[in-house]
């Protein structure tokens, strides 16, 4: 049953109708990526479902169901919960700061009894929701020079500072980029963007000397000249490039990549999985993965354009911006175009919490698709009374 803006609202709320409205093509593309991930994890696990491939596929399946479930959630619910989610995530970040567990030199995890959680992951989504709501409830001119610019900046800087202090510069940067992406999508004027970029450039040397930890600064310097120290810190980038380059057009074949099978490739199942894909499946495999990511991103951006509510538009744009940033940074990193930062390839890399975040985010995206005709009221702005 074709749905249109003229379909009666009551009919649209039926679950079977909503289910049909899910963007199944997008689901297919995501599943192809996740399936490719499973395949390569099977290979780098020594042609075995253990320890990674099985978990990866299982998680994807589980989270896929959650995604479908979330896509049924009415946008008004997301809207009304957005500040609460943001607030809760912020509190968790503060909790991490106070009682967090230290693993590998960083205080990122919070022990909640069953498992350790990483609240910075929630924040990636929460910041999108909070900013989307803020811009939903404010007029276009609020996105330009005005005191109201301070609120979103504040909303971004609080989690950014907390996460950067853990220290988890990669995630902090992602939160910052996501936030800025939402602001830009909401119509932040170019003067403000230019000012921010200028300030950022000026700040780089100060950040480098006073803010960054030694190991973070070193990552950036070795990125600039990775071959200077092949067995030191440039090792990862060089080995990754060797893995990819030696793959050639068609790759060495599954399970036959010497770089990934013999552990020359570091973090082959997480951050550097793209190198394993390219080594074993060649340029054809690597380019296909990029193509799939491109399709996912464009389908999601189309959903953003379709949405009748500004909240929906911004939520999808922000979510997809995060997703795209993940893909671009990880891709650039494994090919030696960006410093090594702990950014996995979404859906492809092994890792539960990132997968969960991504699938919840896509639940929101699918939700916007399903509820694209839903109009959301703007009057519940807490600042409306000041106007």
């Amino acid at each position, binding site marked *: 049953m074709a749905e249109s803006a003229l379909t009666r609202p009551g009919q649209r709320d039926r679950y079977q109708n909503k289910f049909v409205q899910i963007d199944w093509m997008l689901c297919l593309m995501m599943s192809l990526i996740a399936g490719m991930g499973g395949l390569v994890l099977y290979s780098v696990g020594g042609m075995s479902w253990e320890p990674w491939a099985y978990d990866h596929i299982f998680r994807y399946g589980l989270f896929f169901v959650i995604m479908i479930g979330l896509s049924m959630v009415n946008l008004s619910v997301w809207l009304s919960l957005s500040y609460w989610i943001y607030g809760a995530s912020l509190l968790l970040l503060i909790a991490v700061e106070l009682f967090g567990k230290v693993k590998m030199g960083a205080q990122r995890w919070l022990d909640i009894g069953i498992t350790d959680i990483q609240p910075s992951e929630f924040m990636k989504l929460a910041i999108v929701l909070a900013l989307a709501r803020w811009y939903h409830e404010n007029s276009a001119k609020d996105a330009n020079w005005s005191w109201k610019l301070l609120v979103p900046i504040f909303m971004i800087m609080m989690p950014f500072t907390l996460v950067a202090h853990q220290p988890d510069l990669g995630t902090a940067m992602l939160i910052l980029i996501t936030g800025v992406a939402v602001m830009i*999508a*909401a119509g932040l004027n170019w003067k403000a963007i230019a000012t921010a970029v200028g300030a950022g450039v000026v700040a780089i040397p100060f950040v480098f000397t006073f803010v960054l930890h030694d190991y973070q600064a070193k990552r950036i310097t070795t990125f600039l000249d990775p071959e200077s120290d092949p067995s030191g810190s440039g090792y990862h980038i060089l080995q990754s490039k060797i893995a990819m380059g030696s793959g*050639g057009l068609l790759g060495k074949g599954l399970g036959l990549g010497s770089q990934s099978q013999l552990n020359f490739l570091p973090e082959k199942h997480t951050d550097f999985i793209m190198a394993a894909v*390219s080594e074993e499946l060649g340029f054809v495999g*690597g380019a296909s993965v990029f193509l799939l990511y491109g399709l996912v991103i464009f389908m999601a951006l189309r959903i953003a354009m379709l949405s009748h509510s500004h909240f929906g538009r911004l939520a999808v744009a922000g979510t997809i911006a995060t997703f*795209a940033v993940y893909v671009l940074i990880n891709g650039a990193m494994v090919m030696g175009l960006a410093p090594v930062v702990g950014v996995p390839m979404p859906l492809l890399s092994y890792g539960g919490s990132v997968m969960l975040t991504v699938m919840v985010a896509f639940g929101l995206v699918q939700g916007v698709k399903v509820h694209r005709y839903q109009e959301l009221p703007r009057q519940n702005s807490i600042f409306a009374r000041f106007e």
Partner: protein
Amino acid sequence: MAETSIIFSDVNERQGVFSRRVFLMGGVVAFGLFALTGRLAQLQLIEGGKYRRLSSANQFNYRLIPPPRGQILDRNGVVIAGNRPSFSVLVMRSQVKDIDETLDQIAYVLPQTLLRRRAILRDINQSRRFAPTAIATDLNWEDFAKVNLYASTIPGVDVSMDEVRVYHYGGAFSHVIGYVGKISDKDLKAETEAAGDEEQLDPILLHPGFRIGKQGIEKAFDKDLRGVAGARKIEVNATGNIIAEDSDGMRPATPGEDVTLTLDAEIQQRALEVFGEDSGGAVLMNIHTGEVLCMMSAPSFDPNLFVSGISSKAYGLLRDYERLPLLDKCIGSTFAPGSTFKVATALALLQAGVDPSERVVCSGSYRYGNTTFACHKRGGHGPQNVHDAIKNSCDVYFYHMCNRPGAGPDGIARTARALGMGHIFENFEISGQKKGTIPDREYKRTAFKNDPKWHLGETLSVAIGQGYVTTSALQLCTYIARIANGKKAVEPYLVKKIGSVEKVPFKDFKDLPFSREHLDIVRAGMVAVSNDVTGTAYRNSRLNLGNIEMAGKTGTAQVRSYKGVANRRNEGIPWKLRDHGLFVAFAPADAPKYAIAVIVQHGMGGSMFAAPKAREIMKLALIKDPEMQARIIQPMPIDPSLANAPDQELTSDAPPDTIDIPTPPANPQP
């Protein structure tokens, strides 16, 4: 409602802005993905070859298998230089992340490496990037087993079982066969130049266990002895642990070729023994073929010391010892031949037309111009013909005759050169030969710018092998070999076989320009030296081997000036000032086969000190020769024809180059 319209326009405006921004975002993402795909294409398609090489360099490692060095054998196949197993621990610098930690781990098993830590680190830092460094060598079996068990868990550490050179005869052959040593930067440079460039360099040269020939035969035949390194292709993982060995990539080492020498280990050993503390050299050769059976320089040194690297202290002691053990006194140093030269002078005189029966009366001295030249016998020898002059080594005869027309410096020099003196044997295998000097007018002109004219008085010194005349022991031996041979200018050589290939020596010896008559006269003189009761070496050069006699010539070359010296005796004066003792000989006298030259540096008299040594060495050579054995161990009863054969004198109708061998009976009885 005004507000509504504002809201609507606001809604439209922000939707418009959003759409534009989303297009922009899409553009940025598309650009980013295109860029990444482009980069992927660059890495995989354009630079793919480079990374494939790097990848297989990661994955596969070639471990060199050093080839066993060829052995050096004596003429009878006795191993002179062989190999023995040696266990060592190697570190591959390129595979080690933290060298200190790795050395700590090794020191846990091999505490002795702790003491050498500094030297090891220096070696490691100096080694080339992909060359392993030996950190402990010559381990005993227990240590080796321990390290072998443990090393596989330490990345970059490898144990190897190599072969190390061992010289079974210690010092007896150290000058001839030389020794091997660690490859020096100079060697490496030379090898690199020979190979063209560094890429072409045989990687075995960089292997820490590899040794290169430094001297003598080891150096001259290094390429043959070296062999070809093999390689094991192994697959390693990122931590350097061996995953698998690729048997297809296994290339076994090709052992070096064995080099068989003409030398005889027993004779060589005997020569070293008879020299004892004395300094000098002995050369014994076959007069027909030029095979050198013995070439020994004393005192010697243990070449095994050089294999693993001699300590500078030990080297200093060898270098500074006044008897110069490091010098090869057979070819590398020259001496005045003294009276041993008189055979050549006599031959030159005969060639110049001196009547062999012409007598010169020796009164003990000879006055030439304002100078009195003394004979070694103060009282004089009385009337002497050329035979007597050789037998008695009468100086006056040669003083008197040497400037005869046709002789003189140029005549003597021509003869001496034809006999092998004054030049280097081009085909002799080992390097280090000294040319020596055979003076003539031309020599005087070029060497003495201030006094280019030849004074006839100088011929007198030359005639008795003094003055400017210097020769090496090898030249002296060749000279006697040619005298004994009579027909061909034999040249010495050392190497019989390389691998299984018989080395064909230079067969086409030049003819000697001497008449048989003249040769017979000088040979008869030499026979008399050893066998005539009045001969200068009668007491010291009798072989005592039945009818086999030696024919020799003594020589005593003065080192200091006798001017103003009342006592010419050598006893009690410093070693360095004593006369050199020389003795040259061939044997058997009737049908020569071997020639020998012995120089005892500062050995005082040739008869007293050099002849007995020559006799012992020659005796062994003869005893070992099956042809000679047949002559010595004569069956009973003695064949009447042999019993009547003249054996005391060399008769002119017995050609010296044909050997009359009595056919041994079918059943020899002891």
